[in-house]
């Protein structure tokens, strides 16, 4: 078992830092290029949701990423202490967006669900939102 935790200000410039950090922590597992891109995409969607929707880009606030690696199973948690989600079913629907003028496609959670093995969302109004994402890397000997 190997674990890490990192927290950073809720500004969009930190998305790159978050993606790169998660990818670096996976390196010892020797993931494929596609697997790295999949994880980076998941992180990007989850972190931008936390920054934009959770915190309204308030740089005083922090996004927390935790990772747990057990064998080839990876659990990634992206958490904010922001405004929370009122209706979970509504936000999970493809193309649901509250930011149409900003050209947000409303596909973030759908993309995470597609790329991950499993997505769990815990959210409480004015307490925050936690995404728990699990995804196993392929075994190289079976590839």
């Amino acid at each position, binding site marked *: 078992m190997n674990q890490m935790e990192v927290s950073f200000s809720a500004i969009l410039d930190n*998305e790159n830092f978050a993606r790169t950090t998660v990818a670096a922590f996976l390196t010892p597992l020797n993931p494929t290029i596609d697997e790295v891109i999949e994880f980076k*995409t998941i992180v990007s969607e989850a972190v931008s949701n936390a*920054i934009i929707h959770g915190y309204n880009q308030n740089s005083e606030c922090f996004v927390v990423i935790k990772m747990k690696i057990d064998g080839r199973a990876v659990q990634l948690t992206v958490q904010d202490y922001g405004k929370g989600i009122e209706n979970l079913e509504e936000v999970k629907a493809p193309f649901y967006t509250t930011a149409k003028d900003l050209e947000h496609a409303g596909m973030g959670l759908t993309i995470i669900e597609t790329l991950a093995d499993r997505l769990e969302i815990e959210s409480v109004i004015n307490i925050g939102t936690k995404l728990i994402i699990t995804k196993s890397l392929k075994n190289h000997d079976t590839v």
Partner: protein
Amino acid sequence: MENHIEIEKSHHLIIVHFYGEIDSVMAPVYRGQLSDLIDETQEDLVFDFQNTSFIDSSGIGLVLGRYNQLKFEHRTLILTGLNQVAYRLFELTGLFQIMPYYESIESLKEGTL
């Protein structure tokens, strides 16, 4: 690689090559640049992602936004060169049902010559 776009005119098409990553930071920058480009020209557009290492849903939003802007003027947007993961996400979003896709700029040029 530094994130930027390069614009090439070819065969009555304007080809936009995206370099580096397209995320929530870069998408609004490109949105401004490409909206101006569309306003100032009449040709159809190609978005080439051959040199794009990363695209998230903000990139999908950028593409959809420019598609709508072009469609309003009866112009076409063609996509090329997506990596495997990005291709799956674009497919999931249904983008290929409304705009043509070529694996590479070379296959597009062969197809249109």
